[in-house]
């Protein structure tokens, strides 16, 4: 079933194993993720040269931590986008999980930290399963369904929170430490995010059910006819995305310590933006989680770099918007070039 070879998981962006059909497309993707990576590196280097304080140990920690939550969310969103769906409810799910985790500590003061973490992820998982169930049974675009659950989950959170908030002193020190402690110089949340990216990337590239997500996104009917259990796979993508949003909520709570019902508001579009900038196509079937995570890192690095360049923070969103447009424009250009190439060498094809 699973053709997991002995290779190290760090085969990075080239992830996909020999895939006979889409060679030009694959080179194009590789270039795409490399491009985002170069942009991140160039941005960090230039900013560091401009002001070495940017890469002080504290600066690096901030960079890592800033990207963590968005990267975890973007990885989940990439899973869903690849199946040609979208999940607009992630911001609400993350908020629900963050608040739920915080509230658990208030309700059960002696609660062990792992239990709370599991509960937070569980809340996300349940929300994701509901999304997946609705999307697969209703046969209506996920955009509509998850727009509905975006409101429903957010409202649920407001109703649950009832205007209150959970503060740092309500949470045990061990939990808050999760957001601060470092492993080999890498803050723990960032290490968790890196592990998530590596694991999901490995799964998508090497496992049959992971590859099948691409098939579903490229042509759901064809995938179904060739025996892929599309409904189950799409459910899986939504459930995984929900669980990751739950994890992001836990990380958020651990890092900031203060949680109210507005956590994650408007986050959904930032997450989709990160995935799109990282080369995951909204039209489905294309992209990797490495790209999505890199997109998240790029967006948060820009946020961190702007003040150092003495650029008004207010430019941030305009830059993000321009970046999204550039990314989808670039994708379009590359697709056109591939198409032209295929047509040029098409004597054997048709």
């Amino acid at each position, binding site marked *: 079933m699973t053709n997991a070879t002995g290779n190290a998981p760090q085969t990075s962006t080239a992830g996909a194993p020999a895939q006979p059909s889409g060679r030009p497309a694959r080179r194009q993707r590789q270039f795409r993720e490399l491009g985002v990576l170069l942009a991140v590196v160039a941005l960090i280097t230039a900013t560091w040269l401009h002001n070495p304080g940017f890469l002080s140990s504290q600066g690096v920690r901030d960079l890592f931590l800033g990207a963590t939550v968005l990267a975890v969310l973007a990885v989940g969103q990439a899973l869903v986008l690849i199946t040609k769906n979208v999940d607009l409810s992630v911001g609400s799910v993350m908020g629900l999980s963050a608040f739920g985790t915080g509230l658990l500590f208030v309700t059960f003061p002696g609660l062990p930290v792992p239990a709370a973490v599991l509960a937070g992820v569980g809340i996300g998982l349940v929300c994701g399963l509901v999304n997946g169930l609705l999307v697969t*049974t209703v046969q209506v675009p996920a955009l509509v369904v998850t727009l*509905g659950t975006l409101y429903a989950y*957010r409202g649920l959170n407001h109703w649950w929170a009832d205007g209150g908030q959970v503060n740092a002193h309500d949470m045990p020190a061990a939990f808050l430490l999760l957001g601060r402690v470092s492993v080999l110089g890498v803050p723990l949340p960032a290490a968790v995010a890196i592990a998530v990216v590596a694991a999901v990337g490995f799964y998508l590239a090497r496992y049959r059910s992971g590859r099948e997500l691409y098939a579903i996104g490229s042509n759901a009917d064809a995938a179904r006819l060739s025996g892929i259990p599309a409904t189950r796979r799409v459910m899986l993508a939504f459930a995984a995305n929900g669980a990751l949003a739950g994890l992001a909520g836990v990380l958020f709570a651990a890092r900031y310590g203060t949680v109210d019902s507005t956590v994650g508001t408007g986050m959904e579009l930032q997450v989709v*933006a990160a995935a*799109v900038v990282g080369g995951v196509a*909204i039209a489905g079937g294309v992209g990797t989680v490495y790209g999505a995570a890199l997109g998240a890192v790029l967006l948060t690095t820009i946020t961190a770099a702007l003040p150092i360049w003495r650029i008004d923070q207010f430019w941030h*969103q305009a830059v993000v*918007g321009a970046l999204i*447009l550039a990314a*989808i424009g670039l994708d379009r250009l590359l697709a056109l070039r591939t198409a032209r190439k295929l047509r040029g060498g098409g004597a054997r094809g048709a």
Partner: protein
Amino acid sequence: MPVAPERTVTATAPDRVGDPEPGPNRRSGAVRLRSLLSGRETPVVSALLVALLGAVLFVDMFATARNVDFLLLSVAAIALMALPMTLIVITGEIDLSVASTLALSSATLGVLWESGVPIETALWICLGVGALLGAFNGFLVTVCGLPSLAVTIGTMALYRGLAYVLLGDRAVASYPSAWVGGAREHFLGLPGLPWIAVAVLVLAVLFGVLLHATAVGRSLFDIGNNDEAARFTGVSVRWTKFWLFTLSGTVASAAGVFWTLQYGTSRADTAFGLELQVVAAVLLGGVSIFGGVGSVLGVMSGVLLLGVIRNALQLFGIGSEVLQVVTGLILIASVVTPNLVARLRAARAPRPSPPPAPVSASTKGEES
């Protein structure tokens, strides 16, 4: 068995209209009625009537002139943006940048007014800016061939960002009181009828006529159903979509001007997140996200339904958070119900002629 072909949702619309009135003798009348009302808006129109009746009967202050005034003012901006959005979604596209266009237009008005441009001139410049923003969306979608969902997520951030660049976190609130008061003034002095409601009504009628009674309107449905086929029948799909996006930008900036004058301030975070409410109202109004189905009447009912529910809840002292749950559940129910009904029908009557029922695999094969 679980593979109900996706098209069934849209396909049920004509059937449903056929059911209640089986008179073939008045065919031309029925056809005209069908072209005017696709049948998908019947649930939302009835829901609106029920909600209105319930609110009038059971909510104390609802039927007062002051409250109706407030209700109409509060839905005006959403209603404005929903009109062009209806046409765009019918052609199978989407515009998520409307709320950001509203904010940027409001910010532009603020900056122009501050720098001494007379307000009459500033208003027209704002509309022009809105048209340009919409045209930029249209350009990216039609000329560059990019998916409108991705494009307008990008321009949503871009336009909102430009609003921040213009205003930062300041607010411009020095508008002349005559103009600010004017936005809340009553039409012909009638209490409970702000002029903006009349303006929206006139626009809605115009949009309704355009969509349901002109060749251009019919071509929008054709584009949504099958743009390839629409192209072969001589419709300029690209230009149509381009003008729709331009129209959407212009109307959104008009909503921005109204918003600014109603509240008397320009802020960059104005109407944050409102685009999703507009989309929700449009979908609730029976417009299919697949394109090809929808009506202005349904969408206006959807906008009003959400407004009435929110207003009634507020009068009951229930917070807006409950409205979010209600909005979400209504939206989900509105897409789940037709599907369930279609399935129940298919399960109850497996014999009759309509193709979809028994062998799903083979019908799918023929389809593609």
